[in-house]
């Protein structure tokens, strides 16, 4: 799966997993912060993203410092998945 396709897939999964019903995939800027000003996600959302990574991409994140970098933006998340997921080739 190429990067663009993965980013698009993540947008859909994010909306579904985090119940972001007011947001459409095309409204998510992959370079914008996921937390704080960007999508305004909270700490529970962060936990849901960890679950998503493990369940859908076979990646376990146990170090919170690592999570902070991985979930900075949708793009950093996609890059991390591409580099670490056995499910993505």
């Amino acid at each position: 799966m190429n990067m663009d396709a993965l980013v698009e897939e993540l947008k859909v999964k994010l909306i579904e997993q985090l119940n972001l019903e007011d947001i459409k995939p095309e409204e998510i800027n992959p370079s914008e912060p996921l937390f704080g000003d960007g999508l305004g996600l909270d700490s529970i959302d962060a936990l849901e993203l960890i679950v998503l990574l493990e369940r859908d991409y076979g990646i376990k994140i146990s170090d919170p410092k690592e999570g902070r970098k991985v979930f900075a933006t949708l793009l950093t998340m996609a890059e991390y998945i591409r580099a670490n997921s056995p499910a993505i080739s």
Partner: protein
Amino acid sequence: MYILNHCRISKGIISDSDGIVFDSQGNNLAYFLKEFYKFDKIIYPKFYKMDEQCKLAFIASEVLFRNFRRDDYADEELAMIFANSDSTLTTDMSFWDSTFAIASPGLFVYTLPNIMLGEIAIRNKIKGENIFFISREYDPKLLYNQTELVFQNTNTKIAIVGWVNYENDTSYLAKLFLVSKSDEAKNIFSLENLINLNN
């Protein structure tokens, strides 16, 4: 103690002190509350993350606060006194099911009934007294006495008092009162108001 407003949500109907606010009989609760959320032009994306019981409490509080002069009171002067019989049983069971795969943190946060108080408090910046009673049998006297106590022993001026219980999409009830300690309104808050949940 005076009633500034009340809200009742049951069987697809939302009503307040002035009568029926929204009627969506025949639709399940999730659909019905979402329709009201859009109808009332509420903008609070966290609503979508809540479980059904929390949505029920949240919408009831939104209706209660519609014409309330919130800015007249300090954050610490508002209290919440709630009760129900099912606690968060439906979400507890959903969460239990999720633990067989990977437990959902998003579900877990709704496995305590006082999350309803938390969500309402965050939305309305309420920092006063709060308590949530869970009992098999509805005990209106307990709710009433607790309201009196809170008004007598704290600096509370306004209290949200009542019942929010969700069993399933067709069996649910929210009945909340917005009660003022001293702002005179036409209806006095009494035990009678709490005794009958069905009107």
